[in-house]
């Protein structure tokens, strides 16, 4: 590489791609919006074309489990936004993670994962995949020696979330990507909390990205969906470690994906095997709704992060708040990393610890009016949850603390409301806690 005196053409901007990538007006009807192709199957013009579609000689749609024209627009748009070679949309974020993992790993294989993961992913790796012979070692996402030490001869992938759960650790993707690649491993990243607007993991060195589109991508809490994006960056050719891509596949007449499909090997195998056989495909109506969401992704994310920072600052200054964990605040241990890796904002989901423990958490949540108490994040409306009295209610304090969850920990997902109203609502909740603590018991 030289010193940068050469200038190539720049691609289209993010906002333009959010609205247009993957779609042109319908050539027959002129429809400007993406039509919902509510059809299970697509007619073959003749038998040779039919065989050609099955044999990967032709491009097109056969059956909506494998691909669908509405879904394809969303897939191409997500690939464009994340700088990937292609993507597959799935029935849920969990289905996306499952598809990405099972495209690479088989029984006997091993994952090294950050331990700060969404609970559902932790369940999948720790309990469910282990029933199928895939094991996981969980490590502290800030401890790079721990990642290195956890790598075994049967390790096939390193996995982490851009923003950890519940501590909001910022994963140092450039450094972890170097570590993974030095060990001949791909890096898979869950970017649900950031979306491509705040962070493009592939540009930072990740090879495969997964999203729960249920959250900010769709943005209105109306659908469940997921996305797998292939960076096309990892070279699987000739690597025995990755037999699903480098060795003949009996399920497709001994096709060797890495040799025939070049940089499209992973995403092609995922479509031709995982979506075909596990079948966790997205409904076209859902794809349409996520596309509607993507059109305003840049605008919404700007407001989400601006509101989140304002609310986080307010909470940090409040007497009833023990601590706030948000990488957009200087008090967060990863503040500096967030400034370089997430310059547009550190997301809109964060947690804080209330004084007064479990009971205070319950009182707080029950005093709120605008924040909705439910198990989701990334809605246009603000959301709140108190893990100790909901998702983790079975755990005693010691086990809670071991998972990084204090008894008074509250998680917020900051929406698009007027920030003064959000702050007034939280103020009401905190006043409730204050009163309850003053009451003699």
């Amino acid at each position, binding site marked *: *590489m030289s010193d*940068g005196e050469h200038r*190539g053409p720049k*691609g289209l901007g993010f906002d333009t791609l959010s609205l247009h990538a993957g779609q042109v007006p319908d050539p027959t009807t002129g429809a400007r919006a993406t039509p919902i192709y509510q059809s299970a199957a697509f007619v073959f013009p003749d038998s040779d074309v039919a065989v*050609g579609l099955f044999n*990967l000689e032709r*491009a097109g749609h056969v059956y909506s489990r494998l691909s669908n024209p509405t879904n394809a627009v969303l897939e191409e748009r997500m690939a464009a936004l994340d700088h990937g070679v292609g993507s597959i949309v799935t029935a849920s974020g969990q289905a996306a993670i499952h598809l990405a993992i099972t495209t690479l790993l088989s029984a006997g294989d091993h994952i090294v994962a950050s331990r700060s993961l969404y609970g559902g992913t932790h369940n999948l790796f720790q309990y469910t995949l282990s029933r199928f012979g895939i094991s996981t070692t969980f490590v502290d996402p800030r401890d790079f020696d721990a990642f290195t030490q956890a790598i075994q001869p049967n390790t096939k992938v390193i996995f982490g979330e851009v923003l950890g759960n519940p501590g909001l650790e910022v994963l140092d993707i450039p450094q972890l990507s170097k570590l993974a690649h030095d060990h001949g491993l791909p890096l898979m990243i869950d970017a649900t909390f950031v979306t491509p607007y705040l962070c493009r993991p592939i540009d930072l060195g990740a090879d495969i990205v997964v999203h729960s589109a249920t959250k900010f991508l769709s943005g209105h809490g109306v659908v469940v969906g997921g996305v797998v994006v292939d960076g096309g960056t990892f070279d699987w050719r000739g690597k025995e470690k990755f037999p699903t891509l480098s060795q003949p596949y009996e399920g497709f007449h001994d096709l060797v994906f890495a040799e025939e*499909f070049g*940089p499209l090997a992973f995403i092609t195998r995922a*479509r031709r095997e995982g979506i075909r056989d596990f079948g966790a495909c997205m409904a076209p109506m859902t794809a349409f709704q996520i596309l509607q969401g993507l059109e305003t992704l840049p605008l919404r994310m700007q407001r989400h992060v601006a509101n989140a920072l304002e609310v986080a600052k307010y909470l940090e200054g409040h007497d009833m708040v023990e601590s706030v964990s948000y990488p957009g605040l200087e008090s967060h241990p990863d503040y500096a990393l967030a400034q370089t890796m997430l310059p547009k904002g550190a997301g809109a989901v964060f947690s804080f610890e209330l004084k007064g423990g479990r009971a205070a958490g319950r009182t707080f949540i029950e005093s709120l009016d605008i924040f909705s108490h439910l198990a989701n994040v990334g809605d246009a409306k603000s959301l709140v949850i108190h893990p100790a009295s909901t998702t983790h209610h079975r755990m005693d304090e010691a086990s809670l603390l071991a998972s990084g969850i204090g008894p008074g920990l509250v998680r917020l997902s900051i929406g698009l409301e007027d920030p003064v109203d959000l702050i007034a609502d939280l103020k009401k909740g905190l006043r409730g806690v204050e009163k309850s603590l003053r009451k003699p018991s």
Partner: protein
Amino acid sequence: MILQLNGEQVYYGTGSGHWKKDAKSIVFVHGAGFDHSIWVMPARYFARHGFNVIALDLPGHGQSSGALLTSIDAMADWVAQVIGAVADDANAKATVIGHSMGSLIAMNMAGRHKATVKQIALLGTSAPMSVTNLLLDAAKDNHHAAIDMTNTWSHSQRSIMGSSDNPGVSNIHAGERWLERAGESVLYTDLAACNAFDAAELPSVECPALVITGGDDKMTPAQAGIAVAQMLPNAHVANLPSCGHSMLTEQPNQVLDALSGFILS
């Protein structure tokens, strides 16, 4: 498949086909900075239709080893030699299909290796195939701007926005990754060879030819392809409206229809 030739490894894709002694052969030759995998769809199609498919990685590209070849003459000589080696028959004959730089190699072979070439198909072609200094200089420095120029100029406006025929694939990003896979100096060496190509030095081409042009091709405009067809005695033109230079990913089905019409007829 892997073959050893002159102490080097030659890799070629077969489209998942198996070699048959009496079958007709088709050789696919990729363009500058690419490798055989750009041909995946036609390779699989013609393999299923009973042809022996040889989708080559040129020396120093993909999984073929060896020094980069610096002229179209040298590349054409190498491909001709590989055809003989794969068929284990010095008199073997094949249809040669090339894209971009590969089209120059096919044209060159049709002039200089008449006995080896049955017919040619030229995709995204132009003679001369001059390359701007802006691009050559960036490529010479192995600068990413060379990939950005090549990739952006190779896609039609429609394809830059997207709406790929291949479900879920972003052709513009796939194109970028293909070029990023090429080793040091590969893109420059190939582009310089294209730039130096002079059709006037070629012995006359006699075999049948198909020229596939793209209506929105900014690298080798359709007019240049038509001019090539006019230079050849027995050429037919198939134009793909609104298609860019990256025709194998932008309009794979239309390319296949044009090729099958030419080869199966």
